[in-house]
């Protein structure tokens, strides 16, 4: 039986890697998750035959409760809320890794000190990923709205982390760790996860979630060593390194280092620059004129942002796009790497509405096309089209690559109100001569544009 179990784990590991590989191309991506899923089913089923196990009834119940709740929420959640769901499921994985470590530490029968050390490290990382992900979820879900920043915060965080480390060392060294030190260790580790995530602003959450994803992978790998489980080691490590790379790519797309994201409350040093910011008049346009401008254009580039997601406007936008195409207008979608709350967030939403992915372009692909575009239609995007990032070294987003929407012949900005964007930075684009503001909720405005287009 042992050979069958090991072989199945091996098969699962292969399927995970092939699945992830397939997921890295749009053509094969859909098959990828099925492959990985098959690996998971195989691995889970054979584990029931692991020698010397008890508690099957309770185990089944736990799987049904956890799996059932996740199935239900995962099916029901709106596409716009995907980022926070990833955060919460990821946190659960971290919590599970920590729970494994807790059980092993309580039993205290370690094969060797190395395994004991790895168990504690995995527990520390897993706990931080668990509580941190829960805070990330709460922030994106709007349960926590404020970023809590206070003096000496970093110092306090460091102390809590140090405390967790001290108890971790005690656990590593002890033959049979006491329950109270186990409890205090987990308490401090969980507290640190909360405290390190609380000051981070919502705009940076994608990077943080990705980091926690990588950390959970690492924690799973460490607990895999403790249990002598190759599938966990390989899958966990692959996710750990892939996640780390993904985190770096995301941070790079925002032109910030990971350290900058984690340790500087965004916007804290930025207010001065923002306040003296751009001056000028925003010029309004109504839906009729905007529709006419686009109907008689040769080329329109649509730049969607989080505002489109909030307004659930993707379906209407696609309908509008099709209406424009019928009139012979070339329409392209330009997606900034960090548009929305997560890289690729906009792509997922547009795909949901039915926009084919070959109409959607990355920043590098589309930027030199803006000067030829008659109209750039910016829907609910703000910082990613802010030319200040090119021109004002004082600005906190200075140096971030942006979409050159301002270079289009005309720019129409669909925006709910006159306020600043998520980051609180004034947007120079809104004051340009070739920019017109079209105020209103994204979905409503797109609806009006479609109606106007029909009357032409």
């Amino acid at each position, binding site marked *: 039986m042992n050979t069958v179990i090991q072989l199945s784990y091996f098969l699962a590991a292969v399927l995970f890697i092939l699945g*992830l590989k397939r997921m*890295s*191309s*749009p053509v094969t991506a*859909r098959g990828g*998750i099925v492959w*990985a899923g098959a690996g*998971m089913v195989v691995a*889970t089923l054979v*584990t029931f035959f*692991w020698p*010397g*196990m008890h*508690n*099957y009834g309770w185990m089944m119940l*736990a*799987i*049904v409760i*956890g799996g059932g709740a*996740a199935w239900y929420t*995962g099916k029901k959640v709106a596409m716009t809320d*995907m980022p926070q*769901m*990833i955060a919460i*499921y*990821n946190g*659960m*994985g971290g*919590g*599970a*890794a920590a*729970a494994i470590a*807790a059980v092993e530490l309580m*039993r205290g029968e370690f094969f060797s000190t190395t395994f004991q050390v790895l168990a504690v490290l995995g527990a520390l990382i897993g706990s931080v990923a668990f509580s941190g992900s829960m805070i990330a979820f709460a922030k994106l879900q709007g349960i926590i709205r404020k970023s809590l920043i206070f003096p000496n915060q970093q110092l306090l965080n460091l102390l809590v982390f140090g405390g967790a480390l001290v108890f971790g060392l005690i656990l590593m060294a002890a033959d049979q760790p006491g329950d109270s030190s186990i409890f205090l260790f987990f308490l401090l580790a969980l507290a640190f996860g909360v405290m390190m995530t609380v000051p981070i602003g919502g705009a940076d959450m994608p990077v943080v*979630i990705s980091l926690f994803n990588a950390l*959970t992978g690492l924690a*799973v*790998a460490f*607990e895999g*060593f403790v249990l*002598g489980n*190759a*599938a966990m*080691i390989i*899958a*966990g490590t*692959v*996710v750990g*390194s*892939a996640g780390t*790379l*993904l985190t770096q790519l995301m941070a790079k797309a925002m032109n910030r280092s990971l350290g900058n994201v984690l340790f500087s409350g965004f916007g804290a040093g930025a207010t001065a620059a923002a306040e003296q910011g751009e001056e000028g008049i925003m010029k309004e346009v109504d839906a009729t004129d905007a529709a006419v401008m686009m109907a008689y254009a040769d080329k329109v580039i649509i730049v969607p942002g989080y505002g489109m997601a909030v307004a659930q406007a993707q379906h209407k936008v696609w309908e509008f796009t099709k209406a424009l195409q019928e009139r012979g207008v070339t329409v392209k979608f330009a*997606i900034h*790497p960090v548009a929305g709350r*997560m890289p690729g967030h906009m792509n*997922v939403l547009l795909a949901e509405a*039915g926009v*084919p*992915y070959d109409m959607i372009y990355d*920043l590098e692909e589309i930027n030199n096309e803006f000067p030829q575009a008659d109209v750039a239609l910016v829907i609910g995007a703000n910082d990613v089209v802010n030319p200040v990032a090119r021109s004002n070294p004082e600005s906190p987003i200075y140096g971030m690559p942006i979409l050159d929407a301002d270079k289009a012949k005309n720019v129409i900005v669909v925006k709910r109100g006159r306020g600043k964007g998520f980051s609180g930075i004034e947007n120079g684009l809104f004051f340009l001569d070739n920019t017109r503001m079209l105020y209103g909720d994204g979905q409503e405005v797109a609806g009006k544009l479609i109606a106007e287009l029909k009357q032409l």
Partner: protein
Amino acid sequence: MIEGFTALYIFMLAAFTGYEVIARVPVILHTPLMSGSNFVHGIVLVGAMVAMGHAVTDMEKIVGFIGVMLAAGNAVGGYVVTERMLEMFKSSKGADQ
């Protein structure tokens, strides 16, 4: 048991594999991939089951139960969400891939 240098080698090779798999991915797949890798570490379910299966005291059983429940949530939720996202990738050439 996988021990010492063997463990270290597995760790290193798996780390490079993860890096290579992700290295040249278009931005449009970043979210699905993050979600997909989130699902893959749901394999922690296997470990949680083993830990719970060997639990003896009540406290161990309770923590094991929580572990299995969380891990199942990770695996199932990760799968459902990733699948829903990837379901939407179609090309304008029509044909389902």
